[in-house]
């Protein structure tokens, strides 16, 4: 193999891990509640800003800041589902989309007011470091993105498969009436599902903030990527979401390598279209 191509291949896979990490929460909310959470990108970016704020004001390492940002986003997710989405679902299936869009706008504007429209980034002692693969050098935080994405995906999957709460979420998403007859309180279970998806959003936000610069409007950009990942991966499969993240990352960096940066997103959208045409349920969807 040509040694040169190793560079975009490795970067594609590692960055793909970050894309998967961002998409996991979107995938879970979509899989359980059939809700396309248009606010997901902005909720992730809110996580980035919270980590940034804690890092700048308290000097806390961004990874340690998760101890604070996870509970905040967990609570916010529970609130959004229980007090906004639940009522919106009772009106129609479009209403939650509009609510999600509204939440996205509120978060974007709140971030502009509190953090200014300037581009921010989180840098740590390890952000300048790199590791070697052969003769090539790669940033350490790309590797961290990948490893964390893998851990979060496996943790979410095991949570849904092995715990009573996780099984209850899965059961309620497959048959709400039967779930009630099992003794599951379906009035709060979706709140917990949304809240747990937001744990992954908080983690994604922190690592995104360490990897890329972000602005209050970055959420939309990452929502588009996450959306592509969920479409490629397929509904209801977290492993599919993870694999799709890697594929999307690879498509993006390889297109950039061979055809230039301007063609990157074009090829991402082409990949999505091809999957939709050949396998509309996604690679690992049901």
């Amino acid at each position: 193999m040509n040694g040169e191509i190793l560079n975009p291949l490795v970067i594609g896979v590692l960055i793909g891990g970050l894309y998967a990490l961002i998409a996991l929460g979107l995938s879970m909310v979509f899989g359980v509640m059939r809700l396309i959470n248009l606010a997901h990108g902005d909720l992730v970016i809110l996580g980035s800003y919270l980590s940034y704020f804690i890092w700048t004001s308290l000097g806390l390492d961004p990874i340690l800041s998760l101890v604070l940002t996870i509970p905040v986003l967990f609570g916010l997710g529970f609130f959004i589902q229980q007090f906004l989405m639940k009522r919106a679902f009772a009106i129609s299936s479009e209403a939650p989309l509009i609510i999600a869009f509204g939440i996205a706008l509120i978060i974007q504007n709140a971030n502009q007011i509190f953090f200014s429209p300037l581009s921010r980034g989180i840098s740590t002692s390890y952000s300048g470091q790199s590791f070697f693969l052969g003769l090539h050098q790669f940033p350490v935080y790309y590797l961290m993105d990948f490893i964390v994405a893998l851990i979060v995906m496996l943790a979410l999957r095991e949570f849904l498969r092995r715990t009573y709460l996780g099984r209850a979420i899965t059961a309620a998403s497959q048959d709400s009436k039967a779930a009630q007859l099992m003794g599951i309180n379906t009035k709060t279970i979706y709140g917990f599902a949304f809240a747990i998806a937001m744990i992954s959003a908080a983690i994604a936000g922190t690592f995104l903030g360490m990897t890329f610069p972000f602005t209050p409007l970055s959420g939309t950009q990452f929502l588009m990527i996450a959306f592509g990942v969920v479409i490629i991966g397929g509904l209801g499969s977290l492993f599919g979401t993870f694999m799709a993240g890697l594929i999307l990352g690879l498509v993006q960096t390889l297109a950039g390598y061979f055809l230039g940066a301007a063609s990157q997103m074009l090829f991402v959208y082409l990949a999505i279209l091809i999957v939709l045409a050949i396998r509309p349920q996604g690679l690992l969807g049901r």
Partner: protein
Amino acid sequence: MMHTMSQETILKVDSIDVFHGSFQALWNVSLEVKKGEMLALVGSNTAGKSTLLDTISGLLHPARGSIAYEGTDITNMEPYKVVELGITQIPEGRRIFPEMSVMANLIIGSYTHRARARRDANLKRVYGLFPILERRKNQIAKTLSGGEQQMLVIGRGLMSDPALMLIDEMSLGLAPIVVNEIFKTLKEIRATGITILFVEQNVRKSIQEADRAYILENGRVALSGTSSELSEEEKVRKAYFGI
């Protein structure tokens, strides 16, 4: 074969009216279930049988009247609390969790706090009653046959460690030989002390299998009595047995 049947009441439904929106499905319905008995609730398609089970389970609440279980008022209780008390419903239409494995379906049956503690014992009991479920435990539930799916939902209900099982139209779409098999198992379950209230459209078969029966017509109790009383009743013979 005679079963020891106490005269103690486990469930008392007292003159309930239940509505679906503006449509009244149940009119002044009263019903009593004795501890340890096998009670049939029969009647035609729209008689209100499933509505009555859903009201007992707390999925619907009556506009008037009351429901008491072991002396506790459950009239307006949420479904998840009703299950916690020991009432389980086996819903109509074999509502398995289709994408989950057979074992995962059974385990979610033990979701309530009281059932979790007895999960392993109950799982053993279910596998004892339905050995086919153990052989297929890692299979995705939707790949089971209709009869096996019905066994799975009954097994899943047993996992909640119930004292009272409400079973809705289990014979629907199943071959008679499978139905007989399941009725045999229900008798085994009843022999372990679990009270059973089952809903069926087939009046003749149900009256044969049950100790007592209630016949619902258009949301009202038309007749009730022991199986032998009902099979003697001229109205029943004419309307349902055709003799």
